[in-house]
């Protein structure tokens, strides 16, 4: 455990001493801020219109603002995550520092877990930018806080899943750009997998759609924690980390 924390905190430090952390947080803040502004502006306009028409107004901020925002955030996240995960192992392989890790008294599991946890922390910081926006709603309204919490939980789980896949891809190459591009393609693919079920009812289409990372996110954004989604994310995380560990191990054998 101590080794994992050592590697994890080193990883977090190296995100924050480089511009990566600030760039990602800034970009996400900008994009999410724009979404947030349009969503709330639209909500206010729709609310005023409803009032003018004189009907009884019951518009939920959760339903009209927060849930769609989470949907947007999860997609934006898919674009940013490869930028977080690509350097995890590729950089160390290129610079030779992986030799230090692999000749230190730590297991391959500890290396992978530590690095992945550092990346998840980085992603949490990125999500915090969204949190700052959503927090504003609590100053000016009374949204239900529970769906907000599940939404962030969903974003985190989804991010952690993609990061584990990204870290596996990063172990396979010395080139950060290759790692990033491959992870990005996989992210896109995992997103659009769900589209298959919209025009095909066959069993295999359902299976493929089930693997889509976004279909499992939707319930979270609506405030539902479904065990099947949690299990999906956790097992995908495990798979990603397991493959990363195996891949590191194989570096020794393939050399």
């Amino acid at each position, binding site marked *: 455990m101590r080794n994992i924390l050592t590697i994890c905190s080193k990883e977090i430090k190296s995100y924050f001493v480089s511009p990566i952390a600030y760039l990602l947080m800034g970009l996400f803040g900008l994009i999410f801020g724009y979404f947030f502004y349009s969503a709330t502006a639209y909500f206010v306009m729709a609310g005023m219109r409803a009032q003018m028409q004189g009907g009884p107004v019951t518009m939920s901020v959760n339903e009209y603002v927060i849930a769609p925002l989470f949907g947007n955030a999860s997609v934006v996240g898919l674009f940013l995550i490869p930028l977080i995960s690509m350097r995890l192992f590729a950089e160390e392989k290129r610079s030779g520092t992986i030799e230090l890790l692999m000749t230190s*008294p730590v297991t391959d599991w500890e290396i992978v877990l530590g690095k992945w946890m550092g990346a998840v922390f980085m992603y949490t910081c990125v999500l915090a930018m969204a949190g700052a926006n959503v927090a504003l709603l609590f100053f000016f309204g009374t949204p239900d806080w529970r769906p907000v919490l599940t939404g962030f939980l969903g974003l985190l789980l989804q991010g952690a899943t993609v990061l584990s896949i990204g870290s596996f891809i990063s172990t396979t190459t010395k080139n950060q750009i290759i790692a990033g591009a491959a992870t990005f393609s996989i992210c896109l693919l995992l997103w659009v997998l769900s589209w298959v079920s919209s025009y095909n009812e066959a069993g295999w289409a359902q299976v493929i759609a089930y693997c889509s990372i976004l279909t499992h996110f939707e319930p979270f954004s609506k405030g539902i924690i479904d065990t099947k989604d949690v299990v999906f994310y956790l097992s995908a995380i495990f798979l990603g980390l397991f493959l990363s560990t195996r891949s590191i191990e194989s570096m020794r054998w*393939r050399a």
Partner: protein
Amino acid sequence: MIKVEGLTKRYARNVAVKNISFEVGKGEIVGFLGKNGAGKTTTMRVLTCFLPPTAGKASVAGFDVLEQPLDVKRNIGYLPETPPVYPEMEVAEYLEFVAKLKNMPRADIGKRIDEVCERAALGDVKHKIIGKLSKGYRQRVGIAQAIIHNPPVLILDEPTSGLDPEQQLHVRELIASLSGDHTIILSTHILSEVEQSCSNVIIINNGEIIASDSVANLHKRGKASETVAVEVAGADAVAVRQRLEEVRGVARVISKDAREGLVAFEVESLEGEKDLLRPVLARAIVQSGWNLTQLKTVGDSLEEIFLDLTRAESGSKSAGTEGESATQ
């Protein structure tokens, strides 16, 4: 401390190390000598558990590299060919990270970093970013990270490569100061380094050990004769040559090109006259009234042994890579 038996490491296409065996006792400093690509790095990587052996056994401090890798790693400090430093970190921060990785007790880390920085002469750059340091400093940071947890065994892969002569000297002194407490294996293709720092030498060529002996014994193995370069000012070449040929113990005199006003020769001694020739030659020239401007042994003898051994092994293969080591 280190025991290697029948170690073989095969990569996909070639065999890097073939069935080598050696042993290193506690407190010894062993020089691993060989051309580039001879198998030095591979052997070291097996010892540090970075690569598993294809066949054979290796153990460090009594722990097997395959069975108890974590114990082996705990007992080893390793400096790879390129120092494994993170350019974005400060020196002290980096050393702290490594100390934690090596499972040092937290309470000791601060003090140990100060000690190691002092030893590796890193005091003045302790809070500098590693990426901004010169190659020499980075190499020293690499050595500092290898010794940070005070391991009984140190494995240093070409610790002086790429350094300027002054830095090389520093690093050699540092290594010498570590002897005694640590068992050290260092690899190099620089012969003088082995002569200065090591008690024993293992010469490796094409993945095989071709000599494993103490430095003193290897010297004895050398040729029984020696060649001395002589340069004389203000004299007639023919006269000097004649005089030199008369000196007792001289087998052959060969004329060499020299600058204007000088005459130069290479004098080969008879067998068994090694180390006896130079004083006699000097006396002969001075007594003839000439000015002796240079007198030195040509070709470091260890170097010759090394070349002889590697040439004999590789047969007709060119030994061109030795050019650089010969100039050291």
